[in-house]
């Protein structure tokens, strides 16, 4: 999305609300799957904001290993300090001064309740989730350099998102609460758009929705347009003052369909 989505715009379905509640009660991580663009990542920010809790994000990449989210031992700075550093405020003899907490470590060391987001866990190696079992289960880990045990004082609320690019291991799944965000229904989509653009013309919205779901109904599309793309499209329509009265062509179709093949299939 071009402009950072404001969190007030987030429309929470009752199903999802229920799932969050269960995660709160069981203190287990909430694993969220769903089509791209259905607001999986946004959920954590939304939740943290409405509850007024601090949020820690860990964006997983293909090269991420489990330790990356826990802590980082900054040996380079320490060596530098030992040779040249005089008034850094860090004590070279104290290794703890060079241990930096990463997202998960930060979340565990909070005094109060906080929210931890592990984003796109399926991006990493297949074994990656298994390396996090103990950390997620007991909410603790060991800093090898100092032998210190970091244990969460309050179990954080953990959100984990996955695009199902890889299958997640069973042992990991057993420890999660699972929710699948279904693609919004016609009515829900209306609410979502209204949350973003409260002043939108009713007729325009109806027509736009009709067109959007018509496109999504085409089978064999390589990538069906998502909620966020639809909202972008609406934004564009409003901005350009396009009206959808003429039922002939869809303006700015490029913001909904993003591959040549899909465009071709659509024009058929």
């Amino acid at each position, binding site marked *: 999305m071009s402009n950072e989505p404001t969190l007030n715009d987030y429309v929470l379905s009752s199903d999802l609300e229920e799932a969050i509640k269960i995660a709160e009660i*069981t203190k287990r991580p909430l694993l969220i799957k769903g089509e791209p663009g259905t607001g999986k990542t946004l959920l954590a920010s939304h939740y943290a904001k409405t509850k007024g809790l601090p949020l820690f994000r860990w964006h997983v990449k293909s090269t991420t290993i489990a330790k990356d989210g826990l802590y980082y*031992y900054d040996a380079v700075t320490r060596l530098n300090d030992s040779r040249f550093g005089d008034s850094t405020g860090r004590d070279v003899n104290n290794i703890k001064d060079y241990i930096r907490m990463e997202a998960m470590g930060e979340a565990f060391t909070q005094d109060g309740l906080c929210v931890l987001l592990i984003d796109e866990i399926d991006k990493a190696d*297949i074994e990656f989730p298994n390396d996090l079992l103990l950390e997620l289960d007991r909410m603790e880990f060991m800093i090898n350099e100092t032998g210190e045990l970091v244990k969460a004082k309050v179990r954080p609320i953990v959100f984990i998102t996955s695009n199902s690019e890889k299958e997640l291991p*069973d042992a990991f799944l*057993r420890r999660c*609460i699972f929710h699948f965000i*279904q693609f919004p229904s*016609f009515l829900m989509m209306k609410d979502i758009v209204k949350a973003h653009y409260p002043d939108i013309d009713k007729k325009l919205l109806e027509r736009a929705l009709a067109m959007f779901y018509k496109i999504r109904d085409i089978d064999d599309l390589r990538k069906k347009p998502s909620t966020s793309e639809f909202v972008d499209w609406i934004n564009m329509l409003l901005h350009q003052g396009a009206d959808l009265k003429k039922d002939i062509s869809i303006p700015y179709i490029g913001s909904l369909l993003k591959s040549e093949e899909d465009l071709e299939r659509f024009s058929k």
Partner: protein
Amino acid sequence: MFLNFFYTLRDYKVPVSTREYLDLISVLNSYSEDSESVSPERFYKVARSILIKDTKYYDSFDLAYTACFKDVVSEGDFKDKLNQWLQNAIDKDLSVERKKQAMNLPSEELMKELQKRIDEQKERHDGGNKWIGTGGTSAFGHSGYNENGVRVGGEGQNKKALAVAGRREFKKYRTDEILDVRQIKVALKKLRSLKETGQAKLNIQRTIDKTCQNAGEIEIVETKSRKNNLKLVLLMDIGGSMTPHSKRVSQLFSAAHQTNHFKEFKHFYFHNIFYDDLYETANMNAAEVTSFSKLKSKFNADTRFIVVGDAYMAPYELFQMTGSMREFYFNFVKDNKKSDLTGMDRVELIKKMFDKTVWLNPEPKRLWHAPTISAVKDVIPMYELSIDGITQAIKRLI
């Protein structure tokens, strides 16, 4: 009833464990402690979030739910049973107020109408028609479920959960029936044998770290890259009886093709059973062939072979030297050059040459008693061409 539901889920092959069962009890228990009511619909949602971990099991969950709770007509019934169960499970008394709520019985008319609608919906669904919206249930929003938030009044609420379950919206996520390129790719990702290969290279990041940890004493760290060392060959039967399955085969092919983590990926085509030549193109151009006997020199013994075909043909094609396609083939294509191997011989040969060979059959298992299929199956392990089949086959290949 609820314990029964748990075991029904297991019968439907949903992996649920004691741990999740205990979680479910603890959540429901915590709801009742907060004196929040647990309607059937809520139970449906809660149970699904806790017990089910993948969309592929949503459909089985719906089926199990329908099977277990279809006779529980009124919410009162449901609540009584739920309470009973919770009491048994945790031996806790429930508030009088909740029991009062359970007695609340509204009009029967509406329920009948709803029941009718649900039955109708099921039939239409089974007929394969596409659902339009959620009309069935939305017309019955009388009980004010949405307005009042969680508090549910009125009977027949289980119908709503049942209606949701009965609609089987998640059927398309099943993995034992449906194939989808993305899902196959996910399955194929497991097909790997990681090996540290090539020359060790200087790992600068780790060298710096190590050196710094040694307080400046230089320590060089060299690492070898881990690469998937696995070679995969796909042999696909095309034409004839395979035509109805061509979509699924091409899905498998494009998934394998797009999964670029194999060290080597090759594919060949054949018709019915391997003759001397394997075709490199789908239109079976006789000029672009790889001879069967060359497979051995071309691929080393630990290359994985996946054969896709229905193995369904006239028995003489498989077992005899003379047969329509064979005769045609040797007489015209190969200029009367004879081969002394039957199709079955080649099936055995390929398994002997490449131990890691599996066969994926697009025909459902119940048809595998056909003589040619069962003969092939005895030699090469055979799996259904479905996500589950592919997953099992891959386990065999690793």
